[in-house]
């Protein structure tokens, strides 16, 4: 907001292009883009995966895999100095010093073999030539600044001893160590829970004001953009199609693609609650305890209570949304209900007690009880054509079908999920993420199930694709009167699909009831914190949620 008026911008990208050359073929990843970042300003680079936003950010510090990447045109002026003209030695003085960067995956961005202190103080020692003592003091100060509780105790911790949010805080501490003029944040909250995401965004906003830093924020999430950015650059297919102040872009988008992005949030109403509908899946006091065994005789000394006494009822044509942070036991609950892992407590499916069934006894029931997994890249066998993938369940459950009949069923299932049946002889890797998730849904639907467990089916997808998958799921539910168990940490998607909601924390139910009720009037503090984080990106006060 201090904006474009303050003379020379801090960073000015002019007419930048990036091409990648792979086995003789050239791909234009970034196509003549230009944007400026003024001092103290936050600019968001928004786009879907593959739009070239990360590549643009990486080229600012020349972190691309040269020489297979090249810049046929453009310059990047940082304080009037063209960074593209410098060699690696000069750039090292800029990297981590004047311009710092934080990445998406805090899990892999930290060295797992070094303590937190060592990783943070290394930067101080290299760039500022600090001694051990001074570096330690400054490290503590930095950890305090990024809101790590009890930093003295954390100095000797290894990355695996910290939660995802804490790791990202350490990453930010490292980025801030040298008081950079510009911070590049490449999807820093995508891998985090909504509650933690809200905390991190809050932290970044605070730090920016305190240190008068500029920020380039790369994300696909428009909610974040609205919260944090002063100006927005919308990118698609390597080009910036629209630039402007955040408010203007959101209120009055000019380009078709921007409008498409803004309209992409999952919308629509869940099916009306109908208590008269027959109950399909019922769980009473479901418990999944993983024993902790110790000693020579492997005696069970304690249990990890992944799911601890949950009651659920899912009716035909209705959706139960299970929400909670990662580690709250939502997926374990779903796997227990569909009898993929053993559990205690009554589970009734279509009026039958199935909690004592063996794997063999479950086999005939599997056809009515399907699962759609989270990762559309992992859940399809890479060496089978999608026709074979979809037909696999048919071979088990309807072995009497002839090859032609099976093929007809596969075609029908693909039509149902709006995929071209002509493409059924291709391998999964030739499809985009959204298409793959449609294939996974088709695999479940081809068996005409009554109950489908959807384990975060949209969380690996771009926002606009998410909306399409949600629409598809809702249409299928209406058509076939399906019962859904919808597991997600994304409350926006849950709101669009579920008529009942179960909020879970540490294996226990925090709140359970009609979705409209819970979304309008959450009773528990934890639910309130979750909603504030998901819908308004606000961090909860007073430690209701963990770091």
């Amino acid at each position: 907001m201090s904006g474009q008026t303050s003379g020379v911008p801090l960073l000015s990208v002019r007419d930048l292009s990036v091409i990648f050359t792979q086995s003789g073929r050239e791909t234009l990843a970034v196509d003549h883009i230009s944007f400026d970042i003024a001092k103290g300003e936050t600019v968001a680079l928004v786009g879907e995966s593959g739009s070239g936003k990360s590549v643009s950010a990486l080229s600012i510090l020349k972190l691309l895999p040269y020489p297979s990447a090249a810049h046929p045109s453009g310059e990047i002026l940082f304080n009037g100095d063209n960074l593209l003209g410098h060699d690696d030695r000069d750039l090292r003085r800029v990297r981590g010093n004047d311009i710092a960067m934080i990445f998406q995956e805090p899990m892999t961005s930290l060295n797992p073999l070094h303590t937190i202190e060592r990783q943070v103080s290394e930067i101080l020692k290299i760039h500022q030539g600090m001694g051990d003592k001074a570096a330690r003091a400054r490290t503590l100060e930095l950890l305090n600044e990024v809101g790590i509780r009890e930093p003295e105790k954390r100095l000797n911790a290894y990355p695996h001893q910290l939660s995802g949010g804490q790791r990202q805080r350490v990453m930010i501490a490292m980025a801030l160590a040298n008081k950079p003029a510009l911070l590049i944040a490449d999807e820093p909250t995508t891998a985090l829970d909504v509650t933690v995401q809200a905390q991190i965004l809050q932290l970044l906003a605070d730090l920016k004001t305190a240190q008068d830093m500029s920020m380039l924020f790369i994300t696909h999430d428009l909610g974040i953009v609205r919260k944090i950015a002063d100006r927005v650059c919308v990118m698609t297919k390597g080009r910036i199609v629209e630039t402007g102040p955040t408010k203007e872009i959101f209120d009055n988008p000019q380009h078709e693609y921007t409008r498409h992005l803004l309209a992409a949030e999952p919308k629509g109403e869940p099916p009306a609650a109908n208590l008269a509908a027959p109950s399909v899946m019922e769980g009473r006091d479901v418990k999944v305890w993983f024993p902790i065994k110790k000693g020579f005789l492997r005696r069970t000394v304690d249990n990890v209570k992944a799911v601890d006494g949950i009651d659920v009822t899912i009716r035909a044509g209705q959706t139960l949304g299970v929400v909670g942070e990662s580690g709250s036991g939502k997926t374990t609950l779903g796997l227990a209900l569909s009898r993929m892992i053993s559990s205690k407590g009554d589970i009734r499916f279509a009026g039958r007690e199935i909690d004592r069934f063996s794997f063999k006894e479950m086999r005939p029931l599997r056809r009515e009880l399907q699962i759609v997994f989270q990762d559309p890249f992992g859940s399809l066998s890479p060496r089978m054509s999608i026709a074979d993938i979809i037909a696999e369940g048919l071979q088990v459950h309807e072995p009497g079908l002839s090859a032609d009949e099976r093929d007809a069923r596969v075609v029908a299932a693909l039509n149902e999920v709006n995929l071209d049946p002509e493409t059924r002889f291709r391998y999964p890797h030739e499809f985009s993420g959204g298409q793959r998730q449609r294939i996974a849904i088709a695999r479940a639907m081809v068996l005409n199930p009554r109950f489908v467990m959807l384990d975060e089916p949209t969380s690996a997808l771009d926002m606009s694709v998410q909306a399409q998958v949600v629409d598809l799921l809702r249409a299928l539910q209406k058509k076939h009167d399906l019962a859904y168990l919808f597991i997600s940490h994304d409350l926006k998607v849950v709101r669009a699909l579920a008529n009942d909601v179960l909020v879970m924390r540490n294996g226990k139910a925090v709140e359970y009831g009609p979705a409209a009720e819970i979304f309008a009037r959450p009773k528990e503090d934890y639910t309130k914190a979750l909603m504030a984080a998901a819908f308004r990106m606000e961090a909860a006060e007073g430690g209701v949620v963990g770091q």
Partner: protein
Amino acid sequence: MGEIAAKAEAETLATPVRRPTSRWGFSPLNQRRWYNFRTNRRGWWSLWLFLFLFIASLFAEFIANDKPILVSYKGELLMPVLVDYPEEKFGGFYAVTDYRDPVISDEIKAHGWMIWPPIRYSYRTVNNEIPEAAPSKPFWLYSKEERCQRYPQGVNDENCTFGNWNLLGTDDQARDVFARALYGFRISVLFGLILTAASAVIGVTAGAVQGYFGGWVDLLFQRFIEIWSAIPVLYLLLIVAAVLPPGFWILLGIMLLFSWVAFVGVVRAEFLRARNFEYVNAARALGVPNGTIMLRHLLPNAMVATLTFLPFILNGSITTLTSLDFLGFGLPPGSPSLGELLAQGKNNLQAPWLGLTGFIVISLMLSLLIFIGEATRDAFDPRKAFK
């Protein structure tokens, strides 16, 4: 809003694939693998050259033999290649007919005719008319007079023809080198193929079971394999050779006892890695039985690793057989073998055609097999893009 996304999704899929126009009943995937294989020119040509040589060597009896293919004798059609006729049929008294004996061949010619294979030597036939002491040179290093000097009528002898000349000379027992190389090639390739196929079946099964079930099965099996593979194969072969008469099947059996271990490691690793993949869980959720999951979902993953190893194991087993023959612990004496040919080459440095023939045949065979193996492996890789 849906339009742009739909367009974008449509663009990522170029031309749609039609229903398989099943050529020889190939599924579209296998058709594509076949196509990928063909795009590797070196592998493609190697396959044809190898197939030609291999099939030709399977009919070695019709190419190089000391018996005629077809004989007409007193109005009767005989096939000495396939049937052993006693000599008394042609007026002699031995149990087995020597058709190269001038007495017999004159008798047959007097009462009919006979068609010889292009080369009138089998791998064990001794040439009694060699121009100089064995090993004698290839015929094209002699003049016509030298070549025929041992035949009764010299240059005009009707037996001094191409079929009786030694194309690649003779070894030190006056046996035709070309015939021995041909039969030796056949026995080497057959040995390698059978050994590789059998050890692949055993090794992949063992690795699959260990990797898929893990736990105690894996632990015990791994310890067993560690002990098992610590046994020195060569010494065992020497000991067994002292007890049992060494032959094709005995050698094959002993080597099979140890060669399957090579596959276990890679296959087990692939299964261990892949058994918790989401698509394997997805198959379990569909109710697919364990055996089918292993066969359909996990085995194809392990196949690329196996196929990568296959040409090397194949070549390894051929080389082992050759080296055993070279040392004299391989096939029984008199068998056609490339290793024995090399040993002769070593002992008769004045006769370079022995060593050179052995070297060229072995290196050609091993190179062709490696090229074919490489191309097969690449063809099975779904991510490999060919232009």
